């Protein structure tokens, strides 16, 4: 089994974390998120991202504001809520812990 397939469940699980990270950086529009991820190992598609964002919104971690666009209809720009920011900080902390564990094992 190729390496990338071995990690695909992990990638899937991490996607939420990464999306929170991107949304936390600046107010973003879904194509922005996709573009940011496209060049990485976490490249994803609308079919996955929209349901994920709606789940995050239901959990109260992100919300969106409508913004007019020069071309076409108004767009949804996503941003973190306060509880989302808190959650992201916890995830970050945990991720550092996991990283440490992985790099220390076997050394």
């Amino acid at each position, binding site marked *: 089994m190729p390496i990338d397939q071995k990690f*695909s*469940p992990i990638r*899937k699980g991490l996607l939420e974390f990464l999306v929170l990270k991107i949304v936390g950086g600046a107010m973003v529009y879904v*194509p922005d998120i996709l573009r940011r991820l496209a060049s990485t190992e976490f490249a994803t*598609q609308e079919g996955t991202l929209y*349901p994920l964002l709606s789940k995050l919104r239901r959990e109260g971690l992100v919300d969106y504001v409508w913004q007019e666009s020069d071309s076409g209809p108004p767009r*949804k720009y996503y941003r973190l809520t306060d509880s989302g920011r808190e959650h992201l900080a916890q995830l970050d902390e945990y991720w550092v812990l996991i990283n440490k564990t992985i790099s220390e094992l076997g050394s």
Partner: protein
Amino acid sequence: MQKVITVSLNGNAYQLDEDAYALLSQYLEQSGRALQTNPDRPEIIADLEQAIGEKCARYLSPHKTVVTGPELAQVVAEMGPVDGDPGTTTESPSAANGTSAGAQAGSGGAWSSGAATGSGASPGASSGPGGGAAAGGGPSVSRRLYQISDGAVFSGVCKGLSAYFAVDVTLVRAIFVAAFLLTGGAALIAYVVMMFIIPYASTSEERAAAHGMPFNARVLVERAKEKYAQFASSSDWRDSRNQWRNEWRRARAEWRFERRRMRDEWRRHWRFGAGGAPASAAALSPGAKTPAANYATHIITGTVLAILGLIFAIFTIGWVLALLSLLTTGALLGWSLPHGVPFWAALVVLVLLYNAIAWPIKAMRRSIYYSVGPYQGAWVEAWNGIAALAVVFALLWYGYHHQPEVHNLFDHLSQWWNESVSTQLNQLHLGERHAPEGTQTAFKDLPLL
């Protein structure tokens, strides 16, 4: 020349050719199904439509205003299959591996033509061991129980059951006949109940779902290719070529018919406004209106219709009995008319009462037919009429044989009938004798008018 269909994607109009339209409505329907349990379904669908529209805009310019099938296929491939359950990381590692392998082999779920050929157990499913195994597990398409009227003996229940359990239809029919004989008719009731509750597979997609096969444009082509391969390798080539050609023609005609139906429905939808469809469905593309009447809706409406039919039938019997008792005994089921109320007034009241009670039941049933889809209304109505009649006859038959009162009533009735008929006949004979005179008078009177 290609026909163009205009669709509204989240409030903006786009023009698609027929292939693109078929692909898009397929994609949106699958998305809707994947999100069935998602509370944000309408919003996510609107977001998806918006994204599709923006991707389509890439292919459009002032001198190219129509999105073609291949372009839309590209758009849909970029969108990717909709993840019905985002962020579920609790699944077991092996299951996760399986799904990811399946996704890798055929880029995901029902869109994978590999999965289609895999579940069809054709020799063409050589997409690697991992992919083959994932496709063989094939949870991408759920099999559904439908009635299949195509090639049915009676209503298509057996045909649908045979498709559902993937066994020969003759076996199912034999089991039914045996059960019918052994249970002394109880199996017939089961059949009738199923006839009403199980929805008909009326579209190509539903027919595919009845057999547990995925249906989309690509799968249709794939299936046709498979048939072609069979024909090419067959020794009896002339025969199978004709068969293949017929099959292909049939599939094409079916497809065309379905599109026309969707289009008509869409038009009707526009003409009459939302027409009872929920607002979210109205916001979707035209194709999404049909799946609004999905499998669960069919089941529920079928059950409700059957129950309403039964209530109606019982009510009708009661009314007929009341009417008969009024005609024969001059009293309403043993309850004599109040003094001073003439016989004809009671009759009029009874008829009015019937209409007053029957009307809301009828209206309810009609509104249910139309929520399922106007194209089925006539058939559902016809079936319900027959069923109501059957229930009436069955109850009367039972009453005649097991309830002495009913038996007496019938005997009384036949006596009354015979008497009145003989009187009528006598009068008729008298009338005949007088008839020529009457006509003459009429003619004489005419010029005076």
